[in-house]
């Protein structure tokens, strides 16, 4: 967005995995899904992200395997390009520039050099299905402007387009009207064969089409409808004799349909979060996989036929075995609900914590862009239905270095009927999770507006303060709750404070825990946290206080308050006077826990602006205008594990912590200073793929299991003099196996080198050091795996040097160089393709 400057706003994960149908690789080892501007490659076994295919400059809207080479993947994007990837190595092979927005992509095996895409060219809401001829060319970037038009006025969603077996026909659906276009080889002609009258059954007129699928071998079309019915159409060549069967189980709209590879069963899913398998397309013979957690948005089937996967509205992909057993879950940041709790950082895992699934808190790892776990707070079965008023998790806070978690849930059906519950969770070291300690029903008479722990290091007793609209703030302390049966601790109310019956809106402890600031509408009150005496009040008459926070470290004598009227005030606690104020419509105000800095995000008609300042001086350290076009709802500072050392004054605030913020449309953004080249992570993650290698003879050569065996051997047979060479550490072997087979020189040429490498060398190296090195490297690299909008294609170089450093020499240098030369040659050959 601000390309010239060094600090840029970058999207950091959390993008939708469920935007389009996921695609399986031909051997079902990998699953591909679109994720914002990237394509992610996951292992279906380990659920780990193997590659992120960077390259598109806008939202990726479709992915398909190359039908002529199943090791390649096509992707299309709103940036108007179709890219061809080698997904095993994560390399971009080719870019086809189409030049108009592409909304979906379809490939068919029969049309060798062309793919189908949904584009909108002229008007923004008219979508066309076109066939794009992909020219054969050796250059990296090819113009593919040869579009042949197939159909007009179609639905934008790729779910409404399906290709029939052997591409005899394309089925399209435009709201009510299904159209079948029969494609003859190479020259297309179009005949709308039958139309369904919308008022076929007037009683239940909700029979709009939602999705279609074609039988892989037979001339049979399945269509899903708004009323939950699935219709199987046959004999559709004849306008009159066409016939259909109805399958009805879903009570709400059918979201997606997929036939199994052989066509013997049909899979359907919808809002019920149940995957239904219709065997032999009969109504009586159906199987269910229930309780999938959220609405099924997409269903896809692996080409090998052994796996299915469902994409869910809570940003989750479930990989399901043919026998309808869920085998793996790929969970991204849950985003389909509004965030009440704000962004928090779990002090233990450094994970981002926020509302997740209904009734859950999700712990999301920013580093690896995946969900760590869900904590069920409400602990009730979620019934998804329109019009039901659910229990909402409204507030949460961590205290005592992650030992305690306080949550507040509420449900308000009518003005007077408020159900409120506060729960306190204790971290259990043994189970490594939070366990419910205290449950308080109706802690206040009205909604709780703020919740904070006293996080001072010296505090001997955990203390929690809640502020509520009922005009009170309550102090809760941990007390001994032991009885004759067991030792226990529990939370009880220690103090109730109020100020002239004003609504308490915010509360905040000073850094050392000695003072508590509670804002009552326009007035800020300062309380002594030992005696719970009112020390002083501040009133600026500038509107209700929206945010309140104490300064940190050297600035701990300042208290900051942001009001609704757009005034930011800073009070000096020593002089009890206003130090400075500024006109700033603050939406988010977050103190950095590791420095004095405070970040404030203001909202204006143009967008959101970021201001970073120290409470001691009214002049901001850093200003960035236009960080986002939409409203920023929440922000948080995340401490860095390894501090950066920016010398420039403007960036010093990013040294210790990183600032993340969440916009209204729930995109998680952060600031990054690194250039895109630097940010690129070497493809060390390839190692992850190796873990999922099957036990083949190659695996035994590469295999890690050998290591364990060897360790055992070493332990038991310490006297034995001959130590077996560890094949995985031999670079020659490694490179041999890592280089794709089709680019290797002849086996005879490599043989001597390979055999040489297996000979014992005179150097004796400890076997254990090496993998550790690799691991550490890996960790470091994965730390900053924030995704970038840009992509520079220099993976090989970093890759090679990275590997080169790791190599522990057992070969002569010349041999090694020779081998590496081959690799370089090979890659350039690929590039020339």
């Amino acid at each position, binding site marked *: 967005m601000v390309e010239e400057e060094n600090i840029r706003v970058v999207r950091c994960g959390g993008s939708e995995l469920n935007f389009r149908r996921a695609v399986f690789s031909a051997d079902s080892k990998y699953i591909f899904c679109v994720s914002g501007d990237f394509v992610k490659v996951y292992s279906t076994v380990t659920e780990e992200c193997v590659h992120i295919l960077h390259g598109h400059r806008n939202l990726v809207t479709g992915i398909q395997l190359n039908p002529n080479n199943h090791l390649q993947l096509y992707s299309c994007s709103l940036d108007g390009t179709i890219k061809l990837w080698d997904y095993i190595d994560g390399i971009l092979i080719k870019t086809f520039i189409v030049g108009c927005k592409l909304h979906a992509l379809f490939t068919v095996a029969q049309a060798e050099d062309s793919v189908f895409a949904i584009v909108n060219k002229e008007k923004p809401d008219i979508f066309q299905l076109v066939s794009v001829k992909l020219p054969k060319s050796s250059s990296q970037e090819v113009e593919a402007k040869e579009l042949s038009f197939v159909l007009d006025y179609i639905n934008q969603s790729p779910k409404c387009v399906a290709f029939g*077996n052997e591409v*005899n026909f394309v089925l399209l659906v435009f709201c009510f009207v299904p159209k079948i276009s029969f494609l003859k080889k190479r020259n297309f002609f179009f005949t709308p064969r039958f139309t369904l009258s919308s008022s076929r059954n007037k009683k239940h007129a909700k029979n709009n089409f939602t999705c279609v699928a074609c039988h892989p*071998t*037979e*001339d049979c079309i399945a269509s899903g409808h708004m009323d939950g019915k699935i219709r*199987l159409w*046959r*004999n559709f*060549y004849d306008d*009159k*004799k*066409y*016939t*259909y*069967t*109805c399958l009805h189980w879903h*009570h709400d709209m059918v979201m997606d349909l997929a036939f199994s590879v052989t066509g013997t069963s049909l899979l359907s899913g919808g809002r019920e979060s149940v995957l239904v398998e219709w065997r*032999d397309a*009969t*109504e*009586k*013979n159906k199987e269910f996989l229930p309780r999938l957690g959220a609405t099924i948005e997409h269903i896809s089937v692996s080409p090998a036929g052994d796996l299915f996967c469902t994409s869910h509205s809570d940003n989750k992909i479930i990989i399901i075995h043919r026998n309808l057993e869920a085998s793996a879950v790929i969970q991204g940041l849950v985003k389909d609900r509004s965030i009440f709790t704000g962004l928090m950082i779990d002090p233990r895992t450094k994970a981002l914590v926020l509302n997740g699934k209904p009734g859950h808190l999700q712990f999301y790892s920013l580093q690896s862009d995946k969900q760590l776990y869900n904590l069920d707070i409400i602990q009730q079965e979620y019934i998804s239905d329109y019009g039901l008023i659910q229990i909402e998790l409204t507030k949460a806070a961590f205290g005592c270095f992650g030992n305690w978690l306080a949550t507040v849930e509420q449900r308000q059906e009518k003005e007077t009927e408020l159900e409120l519950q506060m729960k306190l969770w204790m971290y259990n070291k043994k189970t490594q999770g939070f366990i419910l300690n205290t449950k308080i029903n109706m802690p206040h008479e009205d909604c709780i507006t703020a919740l904070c722990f006293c996080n001072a290091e010296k505090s001997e007793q955990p203390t929690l303060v809640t502020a509520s609209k009922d005009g009170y703030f309550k102090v809760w302390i941990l007390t001994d709750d032991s009885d004759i049966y067991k030792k226990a601790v529990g939370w009880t109310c220690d103090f109730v404070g109020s100020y002239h019956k004003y609504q308490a809106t915010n509360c905040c402890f000073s850094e050392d825990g000695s003072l508590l600031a509670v804002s009552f509408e326009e007035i800020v009150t300062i309380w002594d946290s030992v005696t719970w005496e009112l020390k002083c009040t501040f009133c600026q008459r500038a509107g209700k206080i929206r945010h309140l926070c104490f300064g940190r470290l050297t600035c701990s004598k300042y208290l900051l308050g942001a009001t609704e009227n757009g005034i930011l005030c800073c009070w000096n606690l020593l002089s009890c006077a206003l130090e400075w104020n500024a006109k700033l419509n603050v939406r988010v105000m977050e103190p950095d826990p590791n420095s004095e800095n405070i970040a404030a995000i203001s909202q204006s008609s143009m967008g959101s602006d970021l201001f970073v300042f120290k409470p001691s001086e009214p002049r901001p350290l850093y200003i960035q205008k236009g960080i986002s076009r939409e409203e920023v709802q929440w922000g948080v500072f995340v401490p860095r594990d390894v501090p950066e050392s920016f010398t420039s004054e403007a960036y010093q605030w990013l040294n210790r912590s990183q600032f993340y913020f969440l916009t209204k449309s729930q995109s998680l953004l952060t600031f990054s200073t690194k250039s895109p080249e630097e940010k690129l992570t070497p493809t060390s993650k390839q190692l992850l793929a190796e873990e999922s290698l099957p036990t083949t003879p190659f695996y035994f050569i590469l295999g890690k299991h050998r290591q364990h065996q060897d360790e055992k051997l070493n332990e038991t047979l310490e006297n034995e003099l001959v130590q077996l060479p560890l094949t995985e550490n031999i670079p020659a072997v490694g490179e041999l196996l890592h280089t794709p087979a089709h680019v290797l020189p002849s086996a005879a040429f490599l043989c001597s080198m390979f055999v040489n490498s297996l000979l014992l060398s005179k150097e004796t190296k400890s076997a254990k050091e090496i993998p550790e090195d690799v691991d550490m490297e890996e960790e470091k690299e994965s730390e900053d795996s924030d995704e970038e909008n840009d992509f520079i294609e220099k993976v090989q170089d970093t890759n090679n040097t990275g590997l080169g450093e790791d190599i522990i020499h057992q070969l002569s240098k010349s041999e090694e160089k020779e081998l590496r030369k081959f690799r370089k040659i090979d890659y350039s050959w690929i590039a020339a393709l």
Partner: protein
Amino acid sequence: MGEFKVHRVRFFNYVPSGIRCVAYNNQSNRLAVSRTDGTVEVYNLSANYFQEKFFPGHESRATEALCWAEGQRLFSAGLNGEIMEYDLQALNIKYAVDAFGGPIWSMAASPSGSQLLVGCEDGSVKLFQITPDKIQFERNFDRQKSRILSLSWHPSGTHIAAGSIDYISVFDVKSGSAVHKMIVDRQYMGVSKRKCIVWGVAFLSDGTVISVDSAGKVQFWDSATGTLVNSHLIANADVQSIAVAEQEDSFVVGTAEGTVFHFQLVPVTSNSSEKQWVRTKPFQHHTHDVRTVAHSPTALISGGTDTHLVIRPLMEKVEVKNYDAALRKITFPHRRLISCSKKRQLLLFQFAHHLELWRLGSTVATGKNGDTLPLSKNADHLLHLKTKGPENIICSCISPCGSWIAYSTVSRFFLYRLNYEHDNISLKRVSKMPPFLRSALQILFSEDSTKLFVASNQGALHIVQLSGGSFKHLHAFQPQSGTVEAMCLLAVSSDGNWLAASGTSAGVHVYNVKQLKLHCTVPAYNFPVTAMAIAPNTNNLVIAHSDQQVFEYSIPDKQYTDWSRTVQKQGFHHLWLQRDTPITHISFHPKRPMHILLHDAYMFCIIDKSLPLPNDRTLLYNPFPPTNESDVVRRRTAHAFKISKIYKPLLFMDLLDERTLVAVERPLDDIIAQLPPPIKKKKFGT
């Protein structure tokens, strides 16, 4: 149109009996339907699904199978072990032959129509040869262990498939031995049921046998190898019936849940010749078991315990979208079950085995148009007359004066004299019936109750003089030489001079009762007569046909009246012609000679001959012209047909006097309430 006081009668507690079998005859496009009480009805599908003929039931004769053979001969077989042939001309049973195999469960005519096969309780399959006037036992096939519930011929006539309990046998017709025995899976949704009854089989020309069974399965077997090819589980309850189209490209099955499923033979892909059977559309027109189905070239026909006969046209087979393409539900018989004594305000209800006599209630209250008046005196159930013997009542009548009741079964004719003394009624049977009055198809009293007209099943019409308590046979009109066609509709003029009689196919004959001779014959018309009546004073005969045409024929002039000619020239309104049910009763207003009152099951109509006829652009059903409009507007919008749809299903409607109507309704809900409970199905959201 005038205002009437209407007796809205809902105490006719009539429940039609359930349908057991249907048999479709392709040659004549007729459908034979048998009911659980043994009644057999013949519907003419070409004549707007009119119930042309009916054969009264018999308590001991539960029909289990019905089939057409050798063109248009109708056979039935039942649990009494007899095979019967029906005489479709004289409307009686030609003969009954005992098959000597215990109760007969199934029957099938060979594709050539010359042989008849029955499956019996003792497991035997018997082959009969059909001779021109009888059937002749030919031989037995290999005897099976349990009863044969279903039979089907291979279209070539060389093999048959027989469904039994737990297995299906394939017989070779030449040798009479079982070629294959195909065991049916007893499993029902994973639970093993005690027995699996093969309710129906169908043998296709490619050798496939389709079976339907009590486990809810439709299964396809290869008869050459005796192996199961495909199985469709379609219901949680029994699948009870199957019928295959003649082209063998579709078939229909009916289940005990009331659903009818259509299966079609559909090509697998467009460019391959391979075809597969696919279950396509389910139809839920029944609430109870679908005991039987039939497949006509253009429609699926089903019937079951809920007494409806449902005809569901196949949209893809219907060429033009006319009213043939509409779904038909036939519930009530197309004949009169009610007669009325105008003088004493009595209603006689005819049931299968008894008659009920009711006196209508009365009121002294008055009210506005549309008001419900409170009864000052409730309707009285005066008489409950049970028949003797197992036979069903064919017809019944009460005289207009209310002092005579006549009814007839297949073998006997009964005449009763009623005496009213204040509130007491005494009943006296008139004994010594003459031998020729054994059975009647229709009975009618003259307006002054002095004459009784009886149409006997030999085709003769008898006139009987009634006076005091005595009884005297006056004359018999013998049928035209050579024909034995039975007359089933009678009409008499109010002066008693003219008698009109109509048979099932030939025209209407008008007799002069005074001179005791045939007066004239109304020109024949293609469609059967559903109702007729002779207008008082003018002696015009009004005839309604099953294609919804209405004619008026002047008896004295022996020609159609001018009004009738005008109507024919202009044609009826298209909505009038699209009505489902035939007109079953015609009557006249004594003071308004221009009015004809007629009704079918769903409407009541007064035709005012003085008003212009409606054309296709005018609204046919305009219930009440707005009263605030001026007379000019009302006159302009008014047309000859005044239709009221308030009362439905309407079984009978007649004018008691100038200002009083009686309407007998039978709400369908009341019938369903008297049926056994249907199979309970869980409905989502309940």
